[in-house]
């Protein structure tokens, strides 16, 4: 595992993988979309149940990306691997995008189902929004410190602090949710998931996870190359 931490070896190792991962992502996404539209309508929710096949994968992958970001931050901080830092940096924007997508699709789904775009009383909505705030804070901190290595380490500390804080925030929001009476209309979701729905859902989740993997690997590779270009430029400027 640490052998791949060498950026050169990483580039060489992932180069042949990239077409495979991207093809797999596209195939799975196409399959997921196909299954999502051929899945039977929910007897109560009708066609709107199809939003789930975007919403649930986006939400769960968005949360998983923060785990990737936090673990990468840990490796960047403890072992000072430039690759781990590149991985953390590359995960932030997709993570924010997936989480934002989960929030948008969630409120598009919530309007016909719950009769409201947004319900402050629901703990999951709050946790998801806080996750988005963490991504925003991470990117803001990273962008506002000029020195790249310092920005990277400060961001890694924040990423790690966020990782230990997210479960606590989740717990506190859940606790708050039981304090306030949860809105009863949220109980009105459809029947428990059947196999007709489960298969497209699992396919979609796999598709989104692989899609993120493809985006992530591409972004890490781009980041390594970007740094290389920067250092070549710096060397040229020194020589000139």
């Amino acid at each position, binding site marked *: 595992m640490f052998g791949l931490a060498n950026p050169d070896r990483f580039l060489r190792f992932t180069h042949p993988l990239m077409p495979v991962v991207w093809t797999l992502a596209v195939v799975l996404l196409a399959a997921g979309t196909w299954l999502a539209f051929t899945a039977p309508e929910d007897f109560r929710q009708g066609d709107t149940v199809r939003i789930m096949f975007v919403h649930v994968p986006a939400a769960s992958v968005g949360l998983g990306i923060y785990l990737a970001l936090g673990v990468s931050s840990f490796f960047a901080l403890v072992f000072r691997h430039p690759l781990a830092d590149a991985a953390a940096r590359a995960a932030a924007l997709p993570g924010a995008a997936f989480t934002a997508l989960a929030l948008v699709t969630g409120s598009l789904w919530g309007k016909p189902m719950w009769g409201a775009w947004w319900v402050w009383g629901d703990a999951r909505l709050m946790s998801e929004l*806080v996750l988005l705030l963490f991504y925003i804070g991470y990117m803001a901190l990273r962008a*506002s410190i000029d020195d790249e290595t*310092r920005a990277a380490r*400060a961001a890694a500390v924040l990423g790690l602090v966020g990782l230990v804080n997210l479960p606590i925030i989740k717990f506190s*929001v859940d606790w708050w949710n039981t304090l306030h009476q949860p809105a009863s209309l949220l109980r009105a979701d459809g029947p428990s998931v059947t196999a007709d729905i489960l298969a497209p859902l699992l396919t979609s989740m796999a598709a989104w996870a692989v899609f993120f993997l493809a985006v992530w690997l591409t972004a890490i590779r781009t980041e390594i190359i970007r740094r290389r270009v920067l250092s070549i430029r710096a060397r040229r400027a020194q020589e000139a």
Partner: protein
Amino acid sequence: MSALSILFRRELALAWAGGGGPLLACGFFLCLTVLVPLAAGGDPAGLRPVAGGVAWLALALSSILSLERLFERDHEDGALDLIALGPAPLELVVLAKAAAQWLAVGVPLAVTAPVAAITLGLTPDQAPLVALSALIGALGFALTGALGAALALGSKRGGLLIAVVVLPLFIPPVVFGAGALERGVNGLSPGPALALLTAYVLFAAVVTPFAGAAAIRNAQG
């Protein structure tokens, strides 16, 4: 030990010097409290349920105000480098600065909080609970805020950045603190909420020194 106590006294003196920082924070707190009925309508029946929550919101926002000053000024004039070279470990320096911040800003705010909550319609018998929970919560805000201030060292937009980084971390103390008040108003025992609030403060007291010291070392390069 003496190095830390000198640092602690220095921080308190700096907080009070030049226009009374704590009074400024309390003034800000009261300004926020004034704006709430003006923005949300002055109907007492509408204000009473949110009185405790508004007091907590104002406490959280006021706690952020003076965070930029906590490390940034010492970083700019080089005092932070000298402190880092001194005998006290940087982890304890962070803890001492956060404690001084709590004593200088948090405690005055905690004393102001019951007044604000009562003007918004909370019954006076809840005042001790407001003060106690605000006292504990302000310590949590000072500790978490110190971490944010240390992380934002050397950034171009200190204040706003600290707020964006720190406010999501303020969620648990706000939830537990306002929850304690809500339980108190409803006649339940606020004990569990206060215990959770204290647990969060203890957690922050463990995380902040190490993470904050790492951030400061990083900023000093």
